[in-house]
């Protein structure tokens, strides 16, 4: 494996890490406000379908992107209705949303396109193209830094750069704005926020909607950038890997990015090498597939410090008590 091989693996790691990162940040906003969300998977899935379907029909990937976000936010609002307004169980609501997405996407896809639950392939303006950054060709021959710039940093999809920019933005919003302070407070001690005369319900709905928007970006990225169209169950557990990354990163934006990159590397290696032979010992591809999940369990077991979730996470807030 030479330098270029490594760069190519890293390049595909970044591509695969992007939807994880967007979904992970989505979960971060929701859970920091005290609303646990295991429905990230479902929201990504509807966004993937509607972005691809509408991009195909309108011929514009931007219209598709908006449709994907709208669909994802709609599911977010259902989650908000169940877990904020009606103070229901947030985990159960998340499970329901995942199934709703898995069923509805295929049902609607079959009704609209009759291609066995997929959308037609996207071409031209219906799909995101990779962005070539300036001077990419000129700098290509500069040793070490040139190939890194050309192969890895330049030539990604627009949403990859957006995702990376959302990380400092999330940090800034959470730790440097009044909204962020309140958001974190409502996830730790909603009664205190309420006493200060700030609406817990309103703050949590805001968080859930931001979560929907970010999941929408993640889903749209899957169907209109990473791949050219929607196929049944295309999120393939990414929402759960994002959830795992969120715990791994202890609900903090910068660690979230590094964790998602790590999981992206695992996926990229599994994709590229299948069974890995080390001497006489073969690491089966199934082990590589399971590694993100195994790692998360190892981390949950507390080998890398304790992951302490927001205190009020999962608890519906009612004024009377």
């Amino acid at each position: 494996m030479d330098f270029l091989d490594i760069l190519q693996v890293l390049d595909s790691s970044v591509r695969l890490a992007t939807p994880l990162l967007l979904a992970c940040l989505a979960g971060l906003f929701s859970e920091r406000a005290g609303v646990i969300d295991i429905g990230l998977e479902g929201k990504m899935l509807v966004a993937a379908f509607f972005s691809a379907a509408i991009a195909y029909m309108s011929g514009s990937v931007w219209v598709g992107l908006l449709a994907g976000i709208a669909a994802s936010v709609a599911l977010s609002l259902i989650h908000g209705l169940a877990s904020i307004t009606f103070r229901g169980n947030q985990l159960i609501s998340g499970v329901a949303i995942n199934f709703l997405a898995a069923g509805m996407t295929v049902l609607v896809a079959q009704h609209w396109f009759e291609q066995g639950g997929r959308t037609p392939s996207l071409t031209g303006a219906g799909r995101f193209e990779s962005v070539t950054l300036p001077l990419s060709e000129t700098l290509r021959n500069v040793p070490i830094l040139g190939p890194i710039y050309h192969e890895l940093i330049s030539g990604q999809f627009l949403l990859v750069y957006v995702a990376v920019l959302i990380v400092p933005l999330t940090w800034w919003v959470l730790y440097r704005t009044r909204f962020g302070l309140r958001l974190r407070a409502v996830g730790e001690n909603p009664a205190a926020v309420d006493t200060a005369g700030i609406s817990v319900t309103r703050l949590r709905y805001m968080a859930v909607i931001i979560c929907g928007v970010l999941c929408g970006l993640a889903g749209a990225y899957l169907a209109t950038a990473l791949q050219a169209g929607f196929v049944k169950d295309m999120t393939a557990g990414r929402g759960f890997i994002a959830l795992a990354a969120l715990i791994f990163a202890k609900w903090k934006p910068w660690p979230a990015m590094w964790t998602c990159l790590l999981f992206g590397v695992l996926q990229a290696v599994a994709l590229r090498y299948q069974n890995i032979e080390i001497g006489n010992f073969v690491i089966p591809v199934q082990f590589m597939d399971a590694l993100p999940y195994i790692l998360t369990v190892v981390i949950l077991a507390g080998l890398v410090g304790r992951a302490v979730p927001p205190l009020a996470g999962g608890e519906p807030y009612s004024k009377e008590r």
Partner: protein
Amino acid sequence: MRTLPHWADVVLIPLISLLLAGLLSALVVLAIGENPIAAFKLMVEGSLMRSSGWGYTLYYATNFIFTGLAVAVAFHARLFNIGGEGQAIVAGLGVALVCLYIPWPHWSIALIGATVAAGLFGALWAFIPAYLQAERGSHIVITTIMFNFIAAALLNYVLVNLLRPAGAMDPASGPFPEATHLPTFQALFSTADTPLFRGAPANVTFFLALIACVLVWLLIWRTKLGYEIRSFGQSETAANYAGIHPKRTIVIAMLISGALAGMMSINTTMGEAERLVLNSVEGAGFIGIAVALMGRNHPFGVLLAALLFGFLYQGGAELALWTDIPRELIVVIQALVIMFTGALDNMVRMPLESLFAMLRRGNS
């Protein structure tokens, strides 16, 4: 203040929730350009009007009874076992090993052996998440989700690399020996003149599921352990003061839950496929969540809800066969049932509570 009479809590609320879910499902069917009434008729005809339809309905219901009981037992300890899927996958492996490598003289003894294996393997797969929850406080929902994925990868590896007969293409074990084949309802109930349950996969495992219902009822409401599980679920601090060991209760409740989820694989692996295949669980572990919620965590309720979902599954298969409605309609209905009976419970409960409060004021 108890605002609702018991019967309204146990019967009325699930029924209204179910009605709402059904109504929305009908709208969905309407929206994709099909007639919901005709669709419902077709589902009833295909699953309840013929004995072979019943044979499928009861076969699916058997799976859902086991996974529903699994979720219910964990719920009683306020644990959300979302890992029934993985536990059933690993238990299938146990059933296959027992059937393939032990020379059983008769199916009845093989069934006992398979039950033990399924229970052990299922419990084993629930043990690590349970231990981590008890000892390290790792959230059991997250760990069991992770274990579902790990189980799927493990089964894939074992089938492809170890159990697949030489030269076979599809990832499945070899067929189980004749002596382990369980009697189907067709063999049990057909007479020379009246063939019943023709070709349907329902088998004696259904009776095992009924026994499991009774045993779970005894466990939860008639034993010390069940009392401990319930009081732990009601209030951890109170249970602690009463001398109930929290860690022990978590682990035991999850072991029982895992064993129950695992036992569904007897039905699919030993009863139906008669070999181990890659996707024998097919989401039944998740349907257990809907079944437990609808059945209010009571074994009798679980039985009724499992029959309902058995009907939906068989009816959905009929729909996919005769109309343009894909099987995924069932996934949507399942989602709506989970939503209304689980998360949106208060939406139904709050108006009902004020209604009953009004009636009471009118009477006094």
